[in-house]
């Protein structure tokens, strides 16, 4: 009798394990923060199946016995199954901008108070850090602008450190003239592009 019970239990366990084993690996494409779906290409590691492309919001792929099957999920279903996971996502990066005078590494006076805002926002964010990235306009060579943009970022780091922001929470980068706010011809002076972006994340 005991033995039969044990057998039933074992069978139940086996059934449960089999049920677990049948839960498919699953991938769901979500719309991005602007509401657009982008795309994912899925390639099984084994078998001869060709890649499956997900390119629609809430498109879903399940891997069942080595084969990818496409389907469609929904905002409600995702929230139901993955709500706590979505709620745990880190804060999306926020960017503050300060501007520089021509060819110099001095800040324009109008934008200096932005640094105080940055300090306050950093203090309010758990495990926050600052990424300070310098940018230039297109006057001068790309190499010179790489150096100038990094120097601008370092200037801003020093200003933040002088305001009491811990230096180890600030990293610097120079993007040179690669990422203008306003596209211009080469050698064009453009005040809006001479800037440092301070990213809080």
């Amino acid at each position, binding site marked *: 009798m005991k033995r039969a019970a044990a057998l039933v239990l074992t069978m139940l366990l086996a059934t449960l394990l089999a049920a677990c084993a049948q839960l498919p690996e699953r991938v769901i494409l979500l719309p991005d923060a602007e509401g657009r779906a982008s795309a994912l290409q899925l*390639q099984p590691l084994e078998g001869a199946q060709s890649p499956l492309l997900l390119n629609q919001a809430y498109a879903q792929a399940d*891997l069942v016995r080595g084969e990818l099957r496409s389907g469609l999920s929904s905002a409600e279903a995702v929230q139901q199954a993955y709500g706590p996971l979505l709620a745990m*996502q880190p804060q999306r990066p926020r960017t503050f901008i300060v501007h520089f005078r021509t060819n110099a590494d001095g800040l324009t006076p109008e934008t200096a108070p932005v640094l105080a805002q940055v300090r306050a926002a950093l203090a309010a964010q758990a*495990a926050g850090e600052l990424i300070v990235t310098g940018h230039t306009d297109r006057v001068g060579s790309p190499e010179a602008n790489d150096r100038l943009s990094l120097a601008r970022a370092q200037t801003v780091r020093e200003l933040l450190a002088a305001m009491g922001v811990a230096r180890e929470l600030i990293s610097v980068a120079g993007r040179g003239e690669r990422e203008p706010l306003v596209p211009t011809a080469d050698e064009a002076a453009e005040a809006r592009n001479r800037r440092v972006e301070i990213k809080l994340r």
Partner: protein
Amino acid sequence: MRSLVFALIALLTSLAVQAADPIGRVKRVSGSVWVDRAGQSLAVQPGMALQVGDRLRTGADGMAGVTLADDSLLTAGHNSQLLINDFQFNTSTHEGGMLATLSRGSLHVVTGLIAKKTPEKVNFKTPSVVLGVRGTEFIVDVPEGRE
């Protein structure tokens, strides 16, 4: 003398480990979360820097949110194991690449600046599938009981 040499080597080795560039930071932690690194299992606190080769593990009550150097956001759900196989990112040019493997559990991904510039360089793996990113937000789920 010999012990001094060993002490010096140990010191240099620890400096080398510290000098490894962080590729991101754990931003949010709830429940039990560990990082396996160089044969050790480290309890994770918010703010902890991550390195290539780290395996992030969450317990039955654990979840963790990570921000990588290119602004990618990775959130791991309960009972998850996520290995950062590879990550490179140049902050000047935004060139780089990454590969991460979810061997079990669930993962929410918001891709970052690498995927914006060269999406074909951003890949995720599960035990059975390789995911190629085309600029994206998505969920991957690898239920337990599948090995």
